[in-house]
């Protein structure tokens, strides 16, 4: 009996390792919990063992959904192989990491972000030329420099917005806590009154980025720019779309850039699919809008408006988004050209429903965007 127990413990540890390779985040603590829970259950019943391990080892719904199949797979392999460790190694098949060429630059950016961000390149050092340069026209070797500049700029703008006042001299409302504190030395006679003003309720932001081939680089720059604003806004939700809508907020938040990249690059790219912005926004309105939009939420849409979908869907979606949000800001890099007129069908349809229309194609226009984010 004892030997058998030991074997089970070893197997559970091995199973945890197996799960880790399948994308579970497990620390030693969960392993310990799993082993401890054996005390209280009848582990000779597979179903009970499965339920217990599932309860202890799963973190989120994704884990839960994958768990049962993995559990079965593992224990099946175990029966086949005498030595569990051999069985486990067979499982370790390196996933073919197919890297899309179009995302090379994005990847450098994503990886670059993981490095120390201490080197604060002075924004002012950026040449006037680069300030005005269209992102698409930036040579590859200058992308890094530009990213750093944007990071510095956005941090500066964000810090400015983040300065929240609390105490005030206006007689807004009495701050009893501070009043009592301040007057204790007078033996409780309340002479000096302290006042406070409610903290400004911070706004929320929803970002919808076009990641079709023509827009990929602009999206990368915009996301980099908005990264610093995560601290300013109470909540930033980020979506990408080409033909379908994807929510990437959790990936960006957990700083899991590698995974974010995979999601981005798994999108069907190029002209074959085309962008269906109407469809994407419609999905957003149906699935996410009710719980993400309110009168303090600004919505940023980044797209060139070369819509291949139905314009009616687009118009309806925009009307609904506008009705439930603070403002819609549309960034269209094509508008950076002096001769630009919003003449594509998509842009024509969208135009009447927008609050702010900006190019967002270079550093200068991002700075303008920053101004709108504060208001």
């Amino acid at each position: 009996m004892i030997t058998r127990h030991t074997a089970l413990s070893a197997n559970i540890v091995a199973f945890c390792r197996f799960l880790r390779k399948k994308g579970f985040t497990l620390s030693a603590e969960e392993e310990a919990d799993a082993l401890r829970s054996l005390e209280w259950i009848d582990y000779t019943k597979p179903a009970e063992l499965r339920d217990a391990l599932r309860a202890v080892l799963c973190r989120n719904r994704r884990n839960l959904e994958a768990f049962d199949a993995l559990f079965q797979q593992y224990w099946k392999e175990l029966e086949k192989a005498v030595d569990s460790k051999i069985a486990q190694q067979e499982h370790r098949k390196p996933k073919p990491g197919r890297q899309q060429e179009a995302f090379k630059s994005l990847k450098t950016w994503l990886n670059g972000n993981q490095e120390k961000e201490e080197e604060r390149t002075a924004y002012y050092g950026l040449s006037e030329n680069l300030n005005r340069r269209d992102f698409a026209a930036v040579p590859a070797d200058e992308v890094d420099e530009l990213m750093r500049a944007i990071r510095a700029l956005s941090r500066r703008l964000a810090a400015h917005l983040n300065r929240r006042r609390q105490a005030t001299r206006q007689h807004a409302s009495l701050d009893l806590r501070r009043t009592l504190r301040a007057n204790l030395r007078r033996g409780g006679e309340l002479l000096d009154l302290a006042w406070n003003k409610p903290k400004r309720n911070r706004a929320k932001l929803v970002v919808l980025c076009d990641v079709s081939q023509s827009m990929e680089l602009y999206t990368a720059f915009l996301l980099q720019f908005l990264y610093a604003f995560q601290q300013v806004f109470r909540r930033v939700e980020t979506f990408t779309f080409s033909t379908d809508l994807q929510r990437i907020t959790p990936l960006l938040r957990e700083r899991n850039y590698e995974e974010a990249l995979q999601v981005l690059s798994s999108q069907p790219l190029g002209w074959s699919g085309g962008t269906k912005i109407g469809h994407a926004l419609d999905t957003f309105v149906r699935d996410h809008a009710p719980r993400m939009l309110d009168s303090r939420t600004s919505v940023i849409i980044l797209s060139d408006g070369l819509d291949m979908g139905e314009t009616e869907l687009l118009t309806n979606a925009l009307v609904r988004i506008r009705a439930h949000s603070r403002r819609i800001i549309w960034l269209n890099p094509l508008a950076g050209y002096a001769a630009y007129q919003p003449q594509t069908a998509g842009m024509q349809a969208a135009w009447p429903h927008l609050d702010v229309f900006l190019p967002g194609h270079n550093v200068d226009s991002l700075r303008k965007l920053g101004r709108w984010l504060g208001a």
Partner: protein
Amino acid sequence: MLSGQGYITDDAVSMAVFLSMQLQKPLLVEGPAGVGKTEIAKVMANALETDLIRLQCYEGLDATHALYEWNYQRQLLHLKATEQSAQSVEEKEATIFGQNFLLKRPLLQAITHHRKPVLLIDEIDRSDEEFESFLLELLSDWQITIPEIGTIKATHIPQVILTGNRTRELSEALRRRCLYLYIDYPDFEKEWLIVKNKVPGIDDRLAEQICRFIEVLRTLQLEKTPGIAETLDWAFALSGMHLDHLDRSIIEQTFGVILKDWKDTRRVQLSLSELLERTGIQSKFDDL
């Protein structure tokens, strides 16, 4: 344990609850609205014969509302009353910042309770991230520091249940501290049991039809999918009317109980015939 309290459940749920008690870890319950997440905590408190302390989260919830606050009015009165006494400032200060002048909010209540309570932190995903990280500290150390008094350690570690319905992604750090449980809408058999159990005296045929109809209704993409709470409300209403079966006109008249969005109502109205067909409920007129 749970079924003894009239809570219909399955193995996965009971195992998660059982282990969270054994391992002394908080249990994070997620799932759509109205599937009985909150109910778990209530049932647990009942079964353990202890008190339920509930903290309802909302946007902007802060430490003052969740943890403690000084009873300023009482402090002021006390100072006025002792104005003539010979107490020194230090003595006065020591008095008014004592336990007597402390208003305990749910979290402080929970850790200073005289016996091990069940602490329900409801809809944690509605609170701000700042509050979440503050909670994290409490859940790992089980102590609270009040500057004027010092550190208060938990007398009993409460049994914590957190609920959320994914309006916001919770942080990985919080998830790590908890066991995770996802409750989905129940299948037909489970829901039928729940209805039979909670609505005594309901007609068998009516209960079955109600559950079938709700089951079909949930397959539609509605703005607000009806939960168990809605099913039960409906069952109560219909059995209160002493009905023994459903038909088209009854459903149309009682839409308001299960559908809470006018667009949903319109949508269901339009596809009612199809729904009834799938449910196998006959309309009065079909019989003629």
